[in-house]
Each structure stands twice: as C-alpha cells, then as structure tokens.
C-alpha cells in the first residue's frame, strides 16, 4: 500500500469520534492488514466485580480494525461498511492491560471483502477474542 493511502487511513481512524472516545490508536496498516490498540479504561468495564472490559468495547475495536484492514487492501477503493460481524469471546481480557486487535482482509471481490481478526492482551499466545466479518466494497 502506498505511503499516501496509509496516511489517509490513519487520519480517517483518528477522525472517527467513537474511535477517539475509546482512545484507539492505529499501530500498523497496509496491504489488507491493520492493527489497532485500545488502552485499558475503567469507563469501559462491563463487570464491576472483576474490572473486565465489556464485550461491547471489544466489538467496537474489532469492527474498527476490520474496517481499516479492508480500506488498506490494494484492491479496495477505500470506503467500506460492515455487512456482518461475528465475535467469539474466548476469555476475559486481563484488567489494566490494553487490548490490541489485528485484522486481515484475506479475500476481496468486486462487492464483498472477507475479514478475520483477533484481539490480544499482554498474553498474546492466548487470544481474548476472534472475529470473522464481511464488509461492503464501495463505488467501483
């Protein structure tokens, strides 16, 4: 992916109000792959007894990261929207650790992009969640 397109993607993520609200940071992008980091925040806790981040916040991170991966694909004309997204929650994310999502757009047609993603905390051998999704390929 061109340097210019990577820059556009980075700015695009930063311009998303909800990504900013969750303090998401794009750490890698290019060739249909993206990585986004979301720091631990007590506001995002889903179970006050354990301090574990709510699944919904993980969904928001996964969705953003998958969308970024689609946008960065060389055959994608940039704009995209989620058609569907499935998330498997394998274990609770460890409190006080940031969550990192890695997404890959592994196949793209004229109209549909297929994506898979994984969410990790510091123990990167044991994923927190995995996602599979399909996205639209706009305006071709």
């Amino acid at each position, binding site marked *: 992916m061109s340097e210019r397109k990577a820059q556009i993607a980075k700015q695009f993520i930063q311009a998303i*109000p909800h990504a900013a609200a969750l303090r998401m940071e794009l750490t890698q992008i290019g060739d249909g792959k993206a990585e986004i980091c979301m720091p631990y925040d007590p506001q995002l806790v889903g179970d006050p007894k354990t301090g574990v981040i709510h699944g919904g916040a993980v969904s*928001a991170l996964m969705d953003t990261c998958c969308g970024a991966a689609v946008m960065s694909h060389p055959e994608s004309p940039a704009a995209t929207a989620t058609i569907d997204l499935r998330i*498997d929650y394998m274990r609770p994310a460890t409190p006080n650790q940031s969550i990192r999502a890695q997404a890959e757009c592994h196949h793209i047609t004229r109209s549909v992009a297929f994506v898979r993603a994984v969410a990790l905390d510091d123990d990167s051998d044991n994923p927190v969640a995995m996602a599979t999704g399909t996205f639209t390929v706009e305006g071709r």
Partner: protein
Amino acid sequence: MARKPPEPMQDVKQRRDAALRALVGGVPYIQFLGISFDRRGNELTALLPFDQKLIGNPFLPAIHGGVTAAFLEVSAIIELSWSLLWEDIESGAISLENLQAGTLPRLPKTIDFTVDYMRSGLPRDAYARARVTRSGRRYASVQVEAWQDNHDRPFAHGAAHFLMPRRESR
C-alpha cells in the same frame, strides 16, 4: 383457605425498579454509552440517546458499527439477566435492601455474538429489544433487534450465546 392479599403495587414497583437500577447502574460501560432501560411490567426496551461520540463515519454521518454491536450486546445481556432475576424479584427472595446495597448474582458471560447490519445507524436515538429464545442450565440463546424511527425497519439484528452463571446448589 384465606388467600394472601396482593402486595401493594408501589412495593412491587419499587422492588422491580431497584433491581433494574442495580443491574444497569453498576456497569460503567453502559453509563459510558448512555444506555438506559424503559420497563413496562417485565418488558424492557433499551434506549441509546444520540451523542456525537457515537459517530463512526463523520462524513455520512452514521453511528459506529461497534456502538451498534455494543448496544445490541448490552440489551441482550441485560434482558437475559433480568429474566433470570425476575422470579426472585417477584417472590421477594431478593430483598430491596440487598438490591440497594448492590449485591447482585453473577452475570452471564458472552460466548459469541453475531451482528447483521441492515442499514446505517442514523445520527438520532436508537431503541432495542431482546428476546431469550433458550434459557438452559448452562447455556442461553438471545436474539436482539435495534431500530430508530420506525420499528418495522430495524437497522441491526444480533444473535448471541451466553454461558450461564453457576447457581448455588440447592
């Protein structure tokens, strides 16, 4: 045999509302998104008032797909927890004092969640209702639907599986 007179309506309502407050108010992420619940009898409707920070595409503008997913997931988990608590709320097995002290049973855990995006979420209030389609000892299935101005035109649909909290052996 003399029948026990029905409990005064305000006592029942007070206990139901306290249970709902304890369930919803204790979760920081629900407060962060600004979600509240409207209760009519045992029926819940989730409300997501529009806010600028929920925007995902500033050019359309549209609600972030992740917010939609989170809204559906919150609605589903609250509906399931509420249905598990309901019997104990009605019988008074869960006392008002306990509820106000915030001692609630453990919540179900999400196993998986699937969201279908039917149309883009407009920059306005959204509503959701969930339905528990199966509630077993270990697993539960929940379906949930969200709409904005027109209930007949939902903008997203979700299906989730949950792992049930372990009940104390009786």
